[in-house]
């Protein structure tokens, strides 16, 4: 899953990035409102963490412009202000969740995972597909009760397919959501990784559709 973090305080941004990457996310970072707006409009993210007090363009405006541009990605808003009037304004502008500073990194990770999962239409933290069981909060997967030993990148791919199970996920879409902006993977890297996941799954759950992509079901 790929996440955009828009926050101007550099140390806080670094901590967020580290915590999110440790949790298995691919993270892009923007340090001001204009850059955040641009990235959110042009790149594909599964969720965004947006600080409200940003230089150049404030968070509420960025959020509003994203929604106007049709970007429906779930947004977790960060701010020091915890008056209810201000929280309500953030939600009215299109936020999906709200965390006040100071906060625990764990809270951000948990809430983001829940937001992404709900946005993909899964009401429960667990996604199942036949014998496959994926715990989105714990970041682990099992087949027939046996834990799957997956690398971070493999888990990311499997998680994305599971979130969008039953639907064809194209190659470029998958690349966009499991690699960051600066990565430029070789054209067949994904094929290699999917093949490896298949081997570990042992069950035939990932279907390849020639020229279109993959589907988990």
């Amino acid at each position, binding site marked *: 899953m790929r996440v955009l973090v828009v926050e101007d305080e550099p140390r806080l941004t670094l901590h967020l990035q580290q915590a999110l990457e440790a949790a298995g996310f691919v993270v892009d970072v923007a340090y001001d409102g204009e850059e955040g707006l641009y990235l959110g409009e042009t790149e594909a993210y599964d969720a965004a963490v947006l600080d409200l007090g940003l230089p150049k363009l404030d968070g509420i405006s960025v959020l509003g412009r994203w929604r106007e541009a049709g970007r429906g990605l779930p947004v977790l808003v960060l701010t020091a202000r915890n008056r209810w009037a201000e929280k*309500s304004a953030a939600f009215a502008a299109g936020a*999906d*969740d709200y965390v006040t500073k*100071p906060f625990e990194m764990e809270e951000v990770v948990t809430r983001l995972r*829940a937001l992404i999962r*709900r946005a993909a239409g899964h*009401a429960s933290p667990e996604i199942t597909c036949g014998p496959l069981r994926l715990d989105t909060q714990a970041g682990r997967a099992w087949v027939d009760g046996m834990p799957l030993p997956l690398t971070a990148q493999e888990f990311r791919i499997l998680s994305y397919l599971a979130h969008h199970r039953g639907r064809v996920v194209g190659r470029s879409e998958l690349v966009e959501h499991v690699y960051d902006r600066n990565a430029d993977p070789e054209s067949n890297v994904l094929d290699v990784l999917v093949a490896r996941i298949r081997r570990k799954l042992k069950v035939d759950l990932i279907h390849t559709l020639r020229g279109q992509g993959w589907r988990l079901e």
Partner: protein
Amino acid sequence: MNTPSLRRRLILGAAVWLALGLGAGILVLGQAFRDAVEHGFHERLDAHLRALIAVVETDATGAAIIGRPVGEPRFEQPYSGWYWQVSDGVTVKARSRSLWDFALPTAHAPESGAVHYRRDTGPRGEALEVAERDLILPGATRPLHVAVAAGRAKVDAEVQHFDLLLVVASGILALGLMGAIAIQVSFGLRPLARLAGALESLRDRGGRLDGAYPAEVVPLVQALNRVLDHDAQLIETARTHMGNLAHALKTPLAVLRGELGTAAPDTTILTDQTARLAHLVDLHLGRARAEAVAAHAPGQPVPVAEVAEDMARALRKIHAERGLTLTVAAAPQGFFRGSRDDLSELLGNLMDNACKWAAREVRVSADSRTVTVEDDGPGLTPEQVAAATRRGRRLDESAPGSGLGLAIVTDLAAMLGLSLEFDRSDVLGGLRVRLGLRPDTLLPPEAGETP
């Protein structure tokens, strides 16, 4: 947005009226002079015309005998500008020497008996004023036209001269008056400038406006002083709260410092103390805000239904994981006399607390006097209510009734003089909180209770 300057408005207004007045004066006076001059001119022409008529006689055959009128030597000087002429409409019977061989054109049939004045051109091409009339002599078949003419040049020049004098004099008068008005306006507006100066100097010193001001400005000065007093009070309150906060933060900071100075700092202590710091900041900030805001006069009444819906929208997203049902049933007549911000804070905290502890359902209802928030959670025992509504909260967020939300509501409600009651919801079985919308609203008694 600023409206045009007072000074400019007053001076411009005066200038307009002055221009209108002087303009009208110039027109009227100029016209009056012109009329007087013309009238005098016509009188002179009329006199000469009568002298001319006096010397026109008929002889025994009925032919006209025309003598020479006396009284104006210029009639004898060629092209002098003064002329007389007697004609019968076809030929000139007699004319003045000054006219030489020129013939004054006659007008078409002037009324018999009346003197007719008109302008014409003389032998030199000069502008003339002609006075003429018909004369019917006894025995004559056709009337005689008699005319006397004089050059207009001098008359016209007199009028022009006067007009110029009028304009110049008016101009000078106007300038003088405008100068006087400008001085008057400056003088009149001075108290305002003084007031502005006094306010400016207050910025450095602080305090109130004193000094004497004219009656019209006094209400403004009084209102400003009320605002200044209020601000001073707010600043004092803020200072007090800042002082309290700074004081309260010192202990956890000291503990932190101490722990960080050791060889192996205990992270539990670090976590605890930073949490304590955060909590204290929230608590004191919240109190300071509540007090500052409660001091403001209420503005527009705030519709409760709208604010409750805003909070509900936010809370449905915040607690989306729980799958709760959050309903808002607020009568449109419910209005809160206070700031929207305060009502948001009260309702937001109450509804958030309800959502945290509810099993499945939270209900918010409001009528014109109360807002009720109830949930189907565990509710609060009387001891827990007492603990939750006491000022100065514990840190523990895991036990019901603790945490800052209810403390903030209690503090804010107390500041605003609103009643707050906690009991058990008979519909949902959990906590029910009832908040009065107006200060000193007595909550309605329960059905079956004696009031």
